[in-house]
């Protein structure tokens, strides 16, 4: 195993994050803080609590997930797309590095950044609302699994995209809407039965539900189902990446 290559790619990507600290860290934290102000304080004053949890606290897991999903996807997609765009990908392709090692470097760095962001937002939330974490182990498990899965999705998008517009389409037009509709700001149990059924086709519902369960022990679906669905999505992403490298899809002519 070429661990030095994994380390080189990982460090390169993390250095990019440090270079763009305002865009990478400060901006998402600020945006999430604004959600707290708007949804937590303004709307939260009218919705006192959901299933026994104050509304301000209730939205914290959803907001962390919102950042985790969008940042994992965007960071990983940009990480692999930019070398393709500039042509520096030649060096990765001609190095003695296996596809697994390439993925480990890029996806590992993107997931790390998202996890750091998630933890910063969690710490920031404590300043605004009272919080408790009933199942710390499962909280970390959901955090890591989701960051890894959506970083993989981002990696796939970064290989698939052949322009900056395509790079933005999936995060902005698919991931963000699914997150908003996946119970970030509400429990799906408050929806009419038909919409509750439709929501079950939204994979983000399982992620937010499981993550929220690790905090407050309340969920829209069983947390074991949530873990199962996250793992399923992870496996689908892994198979897709494997296929991309096997066929050289948009990487090697």
């Amino acid at each position, binding site marked *: 195993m*070429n*661990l*030095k*290559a994994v*380390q*080189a*790619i990982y*460090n*390169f990507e993390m*250095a*990019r994050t440090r*270079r763009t600290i305002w865009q990478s860290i400060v901006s998402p934290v600020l945006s999430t803080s604004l959600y707290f102000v708007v949804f937590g304080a303004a709307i939260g004053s009218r919705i006192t609590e959901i299933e026994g949890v104050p509304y301000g606290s209730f939205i914290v897991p959803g907001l962390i997930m919102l950042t985790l999903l969008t940042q994992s996807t965007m960071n990983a997609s940009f990480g692999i797309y930019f070398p393709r765009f*500039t*042509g*520096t990908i*030649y*060096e*990765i*392709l*001609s*190095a*003695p*590095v*296996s596809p697994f090692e390439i993925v480990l470097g890029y996806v590992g760095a993107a997931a790390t950044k998202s996890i750091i962001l998630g933890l910063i937002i969690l710490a920031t939330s404590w300043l605004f609302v009272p919080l408790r974490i009933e199942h710390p182990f499962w909280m970390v498990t959901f955090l890591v699994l989701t960051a890894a899965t959506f970083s993989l999705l981002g990696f796939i998008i970064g290989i698939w995209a052949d322009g900056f517009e395509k790079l933005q389409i999936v995060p902005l037009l698919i991931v963000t809407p699914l997150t908003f509709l996946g119970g970030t700001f509400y429990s799906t149990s408050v929806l009419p039965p038909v919409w509750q059924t439709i929501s079950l086709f939204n994979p983000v519902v399982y992620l937010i539900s499981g993550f929220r369960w690790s905090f407050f022990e309340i969920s829209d679906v069983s947390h074991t189902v949530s873990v199962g669905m996250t793992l399923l999505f992870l496996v689908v992403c892994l198979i897709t990446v494997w296929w991309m490298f096997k066929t*050289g899809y948009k990487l*090697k*002519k």
Partner: protein
Amino acid sequence: MAAATLLKFLAMQSIISVTNLSKRYASGFEALKRINLDIHRGEIFALLGPNGAGKTTLIGIICGILVPSAGKVTVDSHDIITDYRAARSLIGLVPQELHTDAFESVWATVSFSRGLFNKPKNPAYIEKVLRALSLWDKKDDKIMTLSGGMKRRVLIAKALSHEPQVLFLDEPTAGVDVELRKDMWQVVRDLRDSGVTIILTTHYIEEAEDMADRIGVINKGGIILVEEKAELMRKLGKKQLTLQLQQQLHALPAELSAFKLTIGEDGSTLIYNYDTKAERTGVATLLGELSRAGLRIRDLQTTQSSLEDIFVGLVSDRQ
């Protein structure tokens, strides 16, 4: 004596072996047609060919950037597909295009390349490479602030960062000024002297003539010839004798009909092509016949055809 024989044997060994290599792109374009080529250990091999001949495709396949359609390539006996780690770890590649990480420093990008090739950190070696390429003063500068020539040298530094045994230089001197070009070729010579095998493509054929041990000519996806440079010059190189006459000619005198002479455009010049490796060049006889025909010579000069002339002749013959 035995050691010298062993060294000679090693030198003649192929470090890269290309067998029946073909490449057909998805568009149907056949970029390489059953190429067979051996690159000897420790030589400088110049691969010449017009644009679109297949040079970059061939290099791309050997380095792992492109997927071959058929055939086999080994690098120091390691198959580039089944044993790609061992094969690629021996190779350094300087691409034709200036692909660089604009926002990285020179030091960071060269160190990154070393890591990719599974080599432990070695600041002393990186410093040596940067100094040799006159980049040491720029080590902390972002690449985007460098000139085109410097970026080219950064690419060479990256390719050398992992101490490769084989170095591919795809148009290394494009956009580099004369002074820097000389420095770069000196680096290449030093590398060759240290045992590194060098494969280069260049449009500056005089550079290939100056640098290469062997020449390969590729055109339309096929290798036209591979020859020792000296042998190629001897085989295909021609000499030309130009005679300035004191009078003008409208036609060749009958005494000179046995010689393949051409009258120059001004009518007072005679051009005679002859083969340097022929037993008799015919020059002495020609001068005698000119005198007998009553033609007086004002001046004469000889010129040897360059590698460029040979290259143009080879490629145009096959158009």
